[in-house]
């Protein structure tokens, strides 16, 4: 305790202050645009660059984010795509990674390499290839929501696999063996032991899948069909070239806030899940050895 205090009180070298200054400058630099965008969503006029006084019209008025269907539908569509991405990639990715790391077959190595390949292929290349595939070969998949979901799943899945496999590597196979030893079928061992132990990774995967899907532009744009399949990033990209109103700023802020709330909640949950393990691991040493069996017998 004491030594810790002494270390903390020790004067830091000037380099540490410089580093701290750089960090703060970076934070301000990266947050300033968000703050400005937020501010201009309350502009009285139509301008997104000239301040004309305070108003709530872009939040509550007839042309506001919640009343103009252009903005409203884009938000809905973005969340629809994100929901699909999470619901499909997480179970699929978790099952695949369990299969890849617990199955020691001859082809397991090449298979795991293939599974992570979309991670390194540039998204634009993947998008072009998928556009070609969907329009020329796989006619049963129509452009629009189905193709957008397919595209997002394709490149989010490797992320889920990477996250889950990292966690899997730290779970000894002995837990599954113990479950089977106690009479659980391989499937029951997976469901009752492995899935609970993987919970933090599953949650982290869901957060990442959600955030990446919401943020995605390239593949979503390529796979889109009509205006009804416009996501928020697409809307923002297209609108900035035309005459956008501060309602666009409000839309962006709504997206940012929702994403922050969702991922933040997820992160807190993740912390709670993994904290529980940490605390208990430490507590294990704190508990004194119990009176042994023999003593009770006497």
């Amino acid at each position, binding site marked *: 305790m004491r030594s810790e205090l002494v270390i903390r009180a020790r004067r830091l070298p000037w380099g540490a202050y410089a580093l701290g200054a750089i960090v703060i400058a970076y934070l301000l630099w990266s947050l300033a645009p968000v703050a400005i965008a937020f501010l201009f969503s309350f502009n009285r006029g139509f301008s997104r660059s000239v301040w004309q006084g305070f108003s709530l019209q872009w939040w509550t008025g007839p042309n506001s984010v919640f009343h103009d269907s252009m903005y409203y539908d884009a938000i809905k569509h973005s969340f629809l795509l994100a929901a699909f991405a999470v619901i499909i990639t997480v179970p699929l990715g978790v099952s695949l990674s369990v299969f890849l790391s617990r199955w020691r077959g001859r082809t397991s190595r090449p298979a795991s390499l293939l599974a992570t390949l979309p991670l390194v292929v540039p998204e634009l290349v993947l998008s072009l290839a998928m556009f070609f595939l969907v329009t020329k070969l796989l006619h049963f998949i129509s452009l629009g929501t189905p193709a957008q979901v397919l595209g997002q799943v394709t490149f989010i899945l490797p992320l889920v696999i990477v996250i889950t496999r990292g966690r899997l590597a730290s779970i000894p196979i002995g837990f599954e063996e113990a479950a089977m*030893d106690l009479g659980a079928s391989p499937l029951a061992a997976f469901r009752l032991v492995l899935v609970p132990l993987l919970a933090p990774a599953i949650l982290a995967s869901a957060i990442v899948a959600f955030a990446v899907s919401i943020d995605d532009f390239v593949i979503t744009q390529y796979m889109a069909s009509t205006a009804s399949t416009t996501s928020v990033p697409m809307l923002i990209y297209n609108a900035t070239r035309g005459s956008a109103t501060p309602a666009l700023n409000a839309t962006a802020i709504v997206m940012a806030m929702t994403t922050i709330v969702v991922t933040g909640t997820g992160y807190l949950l993740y912390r709670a899940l993994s904290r529980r393990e940490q605390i208990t691991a430490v507590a294990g040493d704190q508990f004194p050895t119990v009176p042994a069996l023999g003593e009770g017998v006497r």
Partner: protein
Amino acid sequence: MAGGQIDIEHLTKTFDDVLAVDDISLEMTSGEFFSMLGPSGCGKTTTLRMIAGFERPSSGRIALDGVDMQHTPPHKRQVNTVFQSYMIFPHLNVYENIAFGLRRQRCSKEETRRRVNETLELVQLGKLAARKPSQLSGGQQQRVALARALVLSPAVLLLDEPLGALDAKLRRQLQIELKTLQQTVGITFVYVTHDQEEALTMSDRIAVMNNGRVEQVATPREVYEEPATEFVADFMGVSNLIDAEAEAKDGDGCRLRVGDFTLRAHGGDCEARGPVKCLVRPERVRLEAYDAAGENRLPGMVERLVYLGSAIQVILRLATGDKLQALAQNDGGTLEYTQGTAVQAYLPPDALRVLRSAGAATTQEQPELTRPATDEASGRINLQPLVSETATDGAANDRP
């Protein structure tokens, strides 16, 4: 509850090109405490995992109560395992861990509760049912692992070095408890360990294994006092193994030539002739004054003394050049020998065992023969064997 007979016939297991288990045949009878003892890599754990069903034998057969287990997956075998690192499910509390197996068997709620509570009492964890595994000490976790397996009333309980992670004191205590428990529940225990003391104190029979083979299967007393091979003799604790030449029959035993000296030996393979190993336990070596006369005495000089607590280890350099360990009980008096004292080592004929020197000196090179440091605290005689004396003994001993 009756049953629990395991028959292993010509069991072999290879991993890629490595031969882990080499054609072993064993029989574990119902209600027996059977230990598989050997250094790491000797195939004992692999054999256990094959009985549990986690490894598939390359060839050979394992039968439980006469039924071949080849096509029975682990979750359908009437055996349960206590794992080396316990593998208690961290997301379930003590009660749920123990109830896990019963729930898989679709036991009724009342019966599950009754049996879990009974087992909790049996291993004396009654008050800790609601605890999470991470809130338990090592010894408590070990009991949960034991309870989780025992609650299912298996025909056979497999234990893979269950005390390996515990400190020496707790381990000794749990050895006695485990043995008592086994006698109480009356099921077959198959116990894997590398600790000869554990095997000796608990087992009905011990299979000493080395390099995937079984060297000897016998009762603890036989394994310790009548080791069949040089390896067993060495592994069962510190022994003196002296190179000798078996010359001729001599009454019940035979005559051995060691350097310029002749010894009479009554134990072991007295029919052997030619180069043999002569085994004598340190506690059977008697130190006498240098002018003592009579047969079976070898002159030598005290090279060092090691204080062990309950005994004093005396390392002699014999006139033949061999090293010999003797053990003098610490009875409170002072030892009249110091470093450099010339003595006679009396080796009683019935303490000398003749072993055919089969695999030459390979067994002596096994690094696993060095006992874990925790054993030293026990004051028992499992120090390092002669061949692996380290600089640390020297330092302890060189004090004036």
